[in-house]
């Protein structure tokens, strides 16, 4: 095991006991970046200079005997839609290719306070709209398990970096599966927290009622450690929940004895690869053999969730992205004739095709004569979906389902077919619509050696049950693998 692919919680202990320094660890991660970044392409911006400086600062603090957080001195990468003061935040878009925020997102303030080493900003689908990271304006990120394949999206850079050892952990964001789906494809652990658990202040808005920032790590403990650092109430986010969070890492018991697991039958119907179905059900069997109680449950509206998701998320996107007008920040077209012409040229040149498609879909479903048939119906369905989950969680503690119906597809395979691309989100969007927490953990490999994700879904603010279940599974299989690169 090299330093760059050692689990974060172990590195934290090695740093605390001074077996290694943060300078050494940071050097190890950057030399890994030097050797694999050219083939993986996880980063939009690297910040080696500040990383090295920060690592030294943390080492100095430690040598002075200062009490430090468990994350102090750990190299963490950040998705490029999370505002970082003084560091480019492009959302992988031409529109924001030169944008340097004058402020930090709340999660960044929290990480900086805990002395995290910020390695840089990670590639993503443009404005988080996509499922393969192919819509990035800058580059295509590759899957570390097979570089001819996509890493998933939209947090493709965040998942690929952790998988390839280019960061110990990363932050992603999840609007319809954007943390869990790439985590599944890249064989790492990703958590989409309960809506309201993590502040969205400083997260560039895509669909505000669905977006959540969450952690990605190589093991369950790392994900809990990073979640502990970023969760909690924030008065700058009106949708932030004012509840007390435990330390999820310290409260983790890795126990499933007596845990009631529900298998939502709709998640195992048409379109799910046999290899995925088998791996997920084998994982459930393993948990059952260790004391969990398993029963089939039903979430009847699941089949409509993808439709409602694309209506609601695009409607919100069309309104959120109206701010990119070439006036206050971002790209402005060079030649124009008057204000309207400037708006239209700026937006047409600054946005990529997928972003335009979502803005136009959102504009259409909100437009006069269509609102009732689309947006209103989708919102009513959203309420029904939430009620169905509430019913199910009165009988079970956690749901087990596939994260994605297939394993990672080839680069270019779905990019010209939006319907096929959207269908990869079918198992994940429902959770955002209902505002629930869910996690993807590796649960096996298909016949090409590509990772398969097990999705665990819990009731609102019950992340602890997700961590306990996931930790139990990870211990039972003896830990997760790393790709050969």
């Amino acid at each position: 095991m090299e330093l760059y692919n050692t689990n974060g919680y172990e590195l934290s202990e090695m740093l605390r006991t001074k077996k290694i320094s943060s300078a050494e660890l940071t050097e190890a991660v950057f030399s890994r970046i030097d050797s694999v970044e050219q083939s993986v392409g996880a980063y939009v911006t690297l910040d080696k200079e500040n990383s090295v400086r920060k690592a030294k600062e943390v080492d100095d603090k430690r040598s002075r005997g200062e009490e430090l957080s468990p994350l102090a001195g750990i190299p963490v990468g950040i998705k490029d839609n999370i505002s970082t003061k003084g560091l480019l935040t492009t959302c992988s878009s031409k529109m924001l290719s030169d944008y340097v925020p004058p402020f930090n997102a709340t999660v960044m303030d929290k990480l900086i306070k805990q002395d995290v080493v910020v390695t840089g900003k990670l590639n993503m689908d443009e404005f988080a709209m996509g499922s393969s990271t192919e819509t990035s304006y800058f580059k295509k990120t590759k899957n570390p398990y097979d570089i001819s394949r996509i890493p998933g999206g939209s947090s493709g850079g965040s998942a690929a970096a952790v998988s390839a050892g280019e960061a110990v952990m990363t932050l992603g964001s999840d609007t319809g599966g954007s943390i869990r789906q790439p985590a599944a494809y890249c064989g790492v652990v990703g958590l989409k927290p309960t809506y309201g658990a993590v502040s969205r202040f400083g997260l560039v808005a895509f669909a505000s009622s669905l977006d959540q920032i969450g952690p990605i790590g190589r093991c369950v403990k790392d994900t809990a450690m990073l979640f502990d650092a970023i969760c909690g109430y924030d008065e700058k986010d009106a949708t932030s929940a004012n509840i007390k969070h435990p330390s999820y890492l310290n409260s983790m018991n890795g126990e499933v004895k007596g845990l009631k697991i529900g298998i939502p039958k709709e998640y195992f119907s048409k379109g799910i690869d046999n290899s995925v179905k088998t791996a997920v059900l084998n994982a459930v069997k393993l948990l059952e053999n260790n004391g969990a109680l398993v029963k089939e449950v039903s979430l009847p509206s699941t089949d409509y969730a993808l439709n409602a998701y694309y209506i609601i998320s695009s409607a919100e996107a069309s309104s959120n992205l109206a701010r990119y007008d070439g006036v206050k920040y971002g790209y402005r077209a060079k030649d124009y004739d008057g204000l309207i012409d400037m708006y239209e040229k700026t937006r047409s040149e600054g946005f990529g095709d997928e972003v335009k498609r979502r803005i136009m879909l959102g504009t259409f479903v909100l437009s006069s004569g269509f609102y009732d048939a689309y947006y209103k119906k989708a919102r009513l369905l959203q309420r029904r979906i939430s009620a169905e989950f509430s019913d199910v969680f009165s009988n079970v503690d956690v749901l087990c389902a596939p994260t994605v119906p297939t394993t990672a597809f080839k680069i270019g395979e779905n990019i010209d077919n939006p319907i096929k691309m959207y269908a990869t989100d079918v198992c994940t969007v429902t959770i955002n619509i209902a505002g629930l927490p869910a996690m993807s953990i590796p649960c096996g490999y298909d016949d090409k050696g590509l990772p398969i994700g097990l999705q665990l879904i819990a009731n609102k603010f019950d992340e602890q049950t997700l961590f306990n279940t996931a930790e139990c599974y990870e211990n039972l299989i003896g830990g997760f693998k790393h790709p050969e690169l």
Partner: protein
Amino acid sequence: MNIDIKHIAKLSRLRIEDEKQEKFESDMQKIVEMVENLPDIEDAPLLDAGNPMTLRKDKAETGKYTRDELTANAPHVTAGCLVVPKTVE
């Protein structure tokens, strides 16, 4: 349903290049056909009583950022002001 892509683009303050018009129109057609499959649910108010949103009072904070910091990302600034094309004849 026929989607008038030019009209929607106009409402969105976007322009679609001529050579991409057909593809955008047929993609949008398929996407709308996909998403319109939704069940009829009895009408009810859309505001969610269980929403955790708590609103704070607006308050003016001064001195947090300088004018230069706030205009540093603007494409065109003159004498500390954002410059836009003439809007009033």
